[in-house]
Structure formats: structure tokens, C-alpha cells
């Protein structure tokens, strides 16, 4: 399969290379005209020096190695391209090109024509985001690992020779170790920095006792080595710094192709067609002014609040408001920004500039100013505070105890307490526990923004679900036909007619009958927003809204037979054949499988609320699913959802919001844990704390349970590490902590804690079948 793809792509490539012109994707010639604009270019380009420019484009279609090959050979298709490098995980391509020989527009057009249309949206031109790896942590680990290895090499002869090592060597080894200790200060600099910042802000975090320990290790070792008293503790210190840094790397796992910080700006394209004096041109969204006439084509987004100029339109607001059904808009009515137009092109007149539209107002809400600092771990900070106070008391206590007897011993015991109490094992507990949970979750397509969210999840007591797209599956709607039985020929006819319409309901009717044969329909008219009518071999068929389908001559007796209720008209397609109303297709949202079990499991422990942007047509079904034990609210605007969460939080509730669309973005942001649900990896998700693959919703109870278990694991591990500390302190307060004891004790305690947390979390996950 892979080979086949490869071969196909290669074929494509050869044709392209000879300019024979294969165009897998057609696009409008002027679609990328805005890329010639210097102002936009300047914002998109990473740099532009002496005619050489570099740009990074996000291309969701990069999915196979052939893509890489083709895209990295761009220079053969366009001589102006100097270099193109693909990053497969991030799904992006960095292109360096010569501005004299080619242009940004030409390059984008070229890669679009070979089938890789880059995602260019309005957020791209708003300040460059650099989601690179934090290089400095790798550098620090490198240095720490280097120091660790070498110090061990110098320390071993001392330990193994039983004190018989020649003094000459001792001296050299000591100095070299001390040198490496100095290098370690670079690796440990982050601990000092965070400890100092938190001290200045008036609280104590786990980095403070670590910093104290490291400093005590260095000073004590320096004095020991320089005065020739002993080999010092640099080996313990190197191991400590190295393990702690490895822990830091372990706790952060980057999911490259996911973005947790998207807002509405990533949802809008960069350009839109503006019609001015009958000339159509692509302009950047920022240039839209009130009273501009815009052309919106099928499946395009209406960029700003506007008035419809064409006769009628179908607007799908599902992403903005959560309404699952497209809305009919008539000429002169208002269309809100963010709606997706379905059907043939329409013309609209902008009422507001892009940044003043309805959808952008939500983002001005204070919830979006939430600071990421709120993610820091409470457990570890509280523990760190008591821990630090404890060891400082103990250290000065033993110092004062020995002081009258022996100054030397007093100093030794003081530093020894700080050294042994340095909470290495303690500090490794959180990264390894939460880091492992993060990995278990990601195996289940549940991606957390960072490890501390594990703790936030364990604390929640209320869960709020969005309905459309979260509890229901938008891609699957169940269609049911009610009415007179249809003959085989009639069904074939209906399918063939529905095939011609782009209306979403027609699509569903078509899919409902997709197993049937096809006939060629010639006589076909579609009245947008109303329905379709067609004639085939003397049979006339009308499908659509009730008012469209029935005329005074229509025989409507079937409606009485079906006990038809008028409120059902919204999502129904009526059908008449030869002026006889046959019945109607009713479209119901399809709920995800097992959603009932999931909710009934959650309802035992948590307050569940369902907020829906839809009308209450689904009330009955939802009540059945939830056994009537949950609060269900309909017709919720995005701001209503947000305020509902604020209200719960005012009652000291910790809220988890699970939603999918832009309409949930405010609520997701406001909640303590916001989870965005997505149907595919590449689809848009609003800014959130976590992203979840839609079919894993049924695992939510297990996920939450694992976070509770992991917090338990954290407490147990804390207890173990404190136990370790007491053992160590027993030696320390007596002032006879030797470098050898320290060198054995520290790694043993750290590694056992690491192993315990990782294995415990994995065991718990296995028991929960995730």
C-alpha cells in the first residue's frame, strides 16, 4: 500500500517536473493574490534579508513519506526555491526562496496545485508564535550527564580503594570534581531562578529546598576538597541535578500536530472575495469595511456580521452557536460571522469590520485573559512549604546543638541535613507520576496540554457536556422514513433526485437510500431554502419543506394517519409524488454509542449538566439517556454557557467542560478543566486544556478515575520519600554523613521512587482497561 502510494506520487512528480501540468487541486487564480501584498508578506515571513526569504507553512495534508519527498524537491519545480524542509510531526514546511526568481504567491500556488494547500489563517499574521523545543533544557541535561559520568569516574577509585588511594590522585580528582561542580551550576540554574522568583513573590515552592540542597552540596564539597578533608559530595550533586532535569523532560510531552491555544482567528481564512464595481478581488480579512460587498462560496465562512444580498442562503452555525441544523436566511436578513455557507455562491454586504463582529466579542471576555500560572501543582507547593520549614528548623536545630561542643561538627551536621533532606526523590514524584498518566492518556487519544492538568482533573466535582458534536455524532445522523410505503422505483427516483442537491438534509436522504440504483434525472429544479422538484417519465416528485411540497391539490391524508405534530417540521424532509403527500423523512441526531452508560456512571459521583445551543426538540431523548438525573438546558448562547460555569464556580465547584465548537470556547476557557472534543486529528479545536478524540468520550470515567488514583500515588510516594529522608537525617544530625553513604543513598531513593510511581500508574491504568 505504502509502496503504491509512493509510486503514484512519484509518477505525479515526473509529470510535474516536465511541466505537463497535472493539477490535483484546482483553485481560483486570484485566491492567493493577497500574498503579493507587502504588508501581509512581512507578517507571514520569518525573515527576509537581501532578497532571500523564509516562510513556514502549515500543511495538514502531509501524511506520508512521499509527501516529504515531493515537498522537499520543490526546488526542481520552482528554480527560485533554495531549500524546503518538511517537519512531519508538526505538519509544516519551511521554504527558503529567492525573491527575485519567485514570489510567495507563486510558491503557495505551486504547492496548492500539487495538492498540498497550506492553511493560511488570520492568526498567522498576528505575531509569530514559536512552538519550538526548549533547547536550553537539552543543553542542561547534556552538561549534567557529562558531569555525572565523569565525577563518578573520579569518585569510584576513592570509594573502592578503601582509602588507600594516593593523596596525589585524591587532590587532582578533587579539583576536577570541583570544576565539574561549577559546570553543574549552569545545569541547575533553573532551580535557583524559580526558587528565587517564588521567594520574591512570597511563597515557597519545591525548587527552594532543592536549591538549598544543591548549594549546601557545593559549598560543603568546596570546603572539603580545598582543605583536603575529603572527596566532597560532587558525585551526589551531579546525580541529583541530572535526575531532576531528566524528570523535567519526562513531565513534558509535546503533541506537535495539536494546538491548545487556538482562538477564533485560526478559524477564519486570510482572505475573502470582495466585489467592488463588478470587479471581484481577494482581499485580506482585515481590510473589510462596513458596506463592502463580499462573495461567499460553497462551504466558506462568512467573515463578519453582514446582510444577505442574494435571495436566500443556508447558513450552518453549528460551530459558532451549537445549533446542529443549518438556518435559512432570506434576502435582507442578518448573517453572523462564523456561519458556514452551504450551497451556491451568495453575495453579502458587510455590516461591521472583521474585528468588531459578534464572534470576536466573546473573546473579549475576561475568561480569555486567564493566566497559565493557574496550572501549577497545589499538592507539591503545599508539601514543599512544610518540608522547607521543617528542614530549616532541623538544620539550625542540629547546628545549635553541636555548636557549643564542636564548631566543625556543627557546620557538618548543618550542611548534612540540607544535603540529605534535599528533596530529590520528593521532587521526582510529580513529574514521573503525572508524566506517566500523560502518556497513558495519549495512548488513548486524550492529549493534555501539560502534566499539572492531571491534578486539576482529579479535583473536579461537576461535569458539563455540550450536546451537539459532543454527545451526538455530527457525522452520523439517523434518518427515518415515516409514511406510505414506497415502491422500489420510487425509492430509486428519490435517491437520484436527492443526489443533485447540496442541501445537508438532501445529502442525508441520499445516504439513507445509498444502496439503491441510480437513474438520470434531467428535469430538476431546486429552490434554495425550500426544496427540490423533479420529473421523471411522467412522475413528478417534490421534496423539501411542508409548505413547498404541498399545494392546494395535494392529498395530505397521510399526516393525520401519522399523528403528525408541527414542531417536527424543522428537521424533516417532506415528499410528495404526483401531488400525493407520501410522508416525510425525519432526521435525528445520533448519540454516541455507550453515552448512556458513561453518563450513568458519572452521575453517581459528579453533578452533570448538559448545555445545548439547540432547541429543545431532543429533550425527550436526552432525558431518557440521562435517566432524568441531570440538568439539561437548551437554547444556550456561548455567553450563557460561560456564565453558567461562572455561577458554578462561585459556589466553589470545580467544573470540567467538555465541548467541541467555537460556541463552547468561552465555557472551555472559563472552566477548571476544558476539554475539546474532535472528530479527526486535523480538525479545528478551540483553545483548551486537553483535546480528546470523540470516540473516547466513553472512557471519561476511567480517565478521571486514573487521575484520582495518580494523586493517591503521589501521596504514597511523598510518604515513602519522607521516610527515606528520616533515614538519611538519622546520619545527618549526628554529623557523620559520609560521601559514600550519600552517593549510595541518593540514587537508591530516587530510582526506587521513580520506579514505584511509573509502575503504580501503569498498573492502575491496566486495571481500568485504558
Amino acid at each position, binding site marked *: 500500500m505504502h509502496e503504491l502510494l509512493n509510486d503514484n506520487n512519484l509518477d505525479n512528480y515526473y509529470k510535474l*517536473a516536465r511541466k505537463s501540468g497535472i493539477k490535483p487541486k484546482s483553485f481560483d487564480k486570484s485566491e492567493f493574490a493577497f500574498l503579493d501584498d507587502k504588508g501581509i508578506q512581512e507578517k507571514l515571513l520569518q525573515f527576509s534579508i537581501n532578497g532571500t526569504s523564509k516562510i513556514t507553512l502549515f500543511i495538514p495534508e502531509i501524511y506520508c*513519506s512521499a509527501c*516529504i*519527498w515531493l515537498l*522537499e524537491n520543490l*526546488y*526542481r519545480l520552482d*528554480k527560485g526555491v533554495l531549500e524546503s524542509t*518538511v*517537519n*512531519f*510531526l*508538526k505538519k509544516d514546511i519551511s521554504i527558503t526562496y529567492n525573491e527575485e526568481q519567485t514570489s510567495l504567491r507563486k510558491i503557495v500556488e505551486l504547492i496548492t496545485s500539487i495538492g498540498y494547500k497550506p492553511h493560511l489563517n488570520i492568526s498567522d499574521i498576528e505575531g509569530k508564535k514559536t512552538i*519550538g*523545543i526548549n*533547547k536550553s533544557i*537539552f*543543553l542542561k541535561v*547534556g*552538561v549534567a550527564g*557529562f558531569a555525572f*559520568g*565523569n565525577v563518578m*569516574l*573520579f569518585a569510584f577509585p576513592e570509594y573502592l580503594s578503601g582509602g588507600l588511594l*594516593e593523596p596525589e*590522585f585524591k587532590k*587532582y580528582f578533587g579539583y*576536577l570534581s570541583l570544576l565539574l561542580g561549577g559546570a553543574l551550576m549552569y545545569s541547575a540554574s533553573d532551580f535557583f531562578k524559580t526558587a528565587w522568583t517564588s521567594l520574591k513573590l512570597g511563597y515557597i515552592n519545591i525548587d527552594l529546598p532543592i536549591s538549598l540542597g544543591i548549594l549546601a552540596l557545593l559549598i560543603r564539597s568546596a570546603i572539603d576538597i580545598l582543605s583536603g578533608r575529603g572527596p566532597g559530595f560532587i558525585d551526589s550533586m551531579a546525580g541529583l541535578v541530572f535526575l531532576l532535569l531528566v524528570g523535567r523532560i519526562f513531565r513534558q510531552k509535546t503533541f506537535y500536530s495539536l494546538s491548545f491555544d487556538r482562538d477564533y482567528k485560526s478559524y477564519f481564512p486570510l482572505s475573502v472575495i470582495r466585489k467592488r464595481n463588478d470587479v471581484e478581488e481577494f482581499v485580506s480579512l482585515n481590510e473589510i469595511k462596513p458596506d463592502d460587498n463580499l462573495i461567499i462560496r460553497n462551504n466558506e465562512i462568512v467573515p463578519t456580521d453582514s446582510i444577505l444580498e442574494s435571495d436566500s442562503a443556508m447558513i450552518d452555525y453549528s460551530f459558532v452557536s451549537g445549533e446542529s441544523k443549518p438556518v435559512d436566511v432570506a434576502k435582507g436578513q442578518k448573517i453572523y460571522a462564523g456561519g458556514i455557507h452551504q450551497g451556491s455562491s451568495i453575495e453579502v454586504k458587510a455590516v461591521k469590520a472583521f474585528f468588531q463582529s459578534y464572534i470576536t466579542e466573546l473573546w473579549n471576555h475576561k475568561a480569555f485573559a486567564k493566566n497559565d500560572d493557574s496550572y501549577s501543582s497545589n499538592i507539591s507547593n503545599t508539601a514543599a512549604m512544610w518540608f522547607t520549614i521543617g528542614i530549616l528548623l532541623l538544620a539550625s536545630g542540629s547546628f545549635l546543638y553541636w555548636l557549643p561542643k564542636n564548631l566543625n561538627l556543627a557546620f557538618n551536621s548543618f550542611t548534612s541535613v540540607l544535603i540529605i533532606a534535599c528533596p530529590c526523590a520528593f521532587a521526582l514524584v510529580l513529574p514521573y507520576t503525572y508524566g506517566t498518566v500523560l502518556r497513558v492518556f495519549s495512548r488513548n487519544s486524550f492529549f493534555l496540554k501539560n502534566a499539572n492538568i492531571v491534578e486539576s482533573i482529579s479535583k473536579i466535582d461537576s461535569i458539563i457536556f455540550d450536546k451537539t458534536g459532543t454527545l451526538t455524532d455530527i457525522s452520523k445522523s439517523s434518518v427515518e422514513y415515516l409514511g406510505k410505503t414506497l415502491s422500489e422505483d420510487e425509492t430509486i427516483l428519490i435517491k437520484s433526485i436527492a443526489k443533485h442537491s447540496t442541501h445537508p438534509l438532501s445529502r442525508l436522504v441520499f445516504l439513507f437510500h445509498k444502496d439503491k440504483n441510480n437513474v438520470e434525472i434531467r428535469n430538476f429544479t431546486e429552490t434554495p431554502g425550500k426544496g427540490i422538484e423533479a420529473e421523471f417519465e411522467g412522475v413528478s416528485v417534490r421534496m423539501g419543506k411542508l409548505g413547498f411540497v404541498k399545494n392546494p391539490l395535494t392529498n395530505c391524508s397521510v399526516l393525520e394517519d401519522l399523528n403528525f405534530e408541527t414542531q417536527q417540521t424543522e428537521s424533516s424532509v417532506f415528499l410528495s409524488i404526483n401531488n400525493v403527500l407520501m410522508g416525510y423523512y425525519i432526521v435525528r441526531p445520533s448519540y454516541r454509542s455507550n453515552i448512556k452508560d458513561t453518563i450513568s456512571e458519572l452521575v453517581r459521583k459528579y453533578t452533570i449538566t448538559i448545555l445545548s445551543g439547540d432547541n429543545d426538540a431532543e429533550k425527550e431523548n436526552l432525558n431518557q439517556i440521562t435517566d432524568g438525573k441531570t440538568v439539561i438546558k437548551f437554547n444556550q448562547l456561548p455567553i450563557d454557557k460561560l456564565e453558567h460555569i461562572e455561577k458554578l464556580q462561585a459556589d466553589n465547584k470545580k467544573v470540567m467542560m467538555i465541548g467541541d465548537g467555537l460556541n463552547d470556547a468561552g465555557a472551555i476557557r472559563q472552566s477548571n478543566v476544558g476539554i475539546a472534543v474532535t472528530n479527526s486529528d486535523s480538525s479545528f479545536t478551540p483553545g483548551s486544556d486537553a483535546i480528546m478524540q470523540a470516540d473516547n468520550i466513553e472512557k471519561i470515567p476511567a480517565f478521571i478515575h486514573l487521575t484520582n488514583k495518580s494523586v493517591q500515588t503521589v501521596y504514597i510516594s511523598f510518604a515513602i520519600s519522607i521516610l527515606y529522608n528520616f533515614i538519611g537525617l538519622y546520619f545527618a544530625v549526628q554529623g557523620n554523613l559520609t560521601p559514600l553513604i550519600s552517593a549510595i543513598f541518593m540514587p537508591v531513593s530516587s530510582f526506587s521512587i521513580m520506579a514505584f510511581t511509573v509502575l503504580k500508574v501503569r498498573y492502575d491504568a491496566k486495571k481500568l482497561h485504558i
Partner: protein
Amino acid sequence: MTVMLILIVISFTLAISFLAAFLWAVKNNQYEDTFTPSLRILMDNDKNNEENNDLRINQVN
């Protein structure tokens, strides 16, 4: 025993050169993308090496 001093110096220099190589690799962005190069190496460029070279020469000119 003084031979050990020489050994120590050698091992230390070696270690430092490894560290330098690692630091260079990080600074050279080799840790930015740890996955794509593994695919890149599988791609077969040999089939049309001649064409490749021709084009490259053209480009330089």
C-alpha cells in the same frame, strides 16, 4: 601509577569532545525534529541521480 594521570586526561578530553558534539547537535536544531529525518533516509534518490545533478548544476549557474 602516573600513567593513570595520562589516562584521566585522555578520558576527560574524550568526554569533553562528546559533550561538545552534543551541544553542537542541539544548537544545530537537530533536536527540533526527531522524526522526519528517519523517513527522509528511506527515500530513494538514486533512480534519477543524473537528472538530479543536472538540475542542481543549473540552479547553481
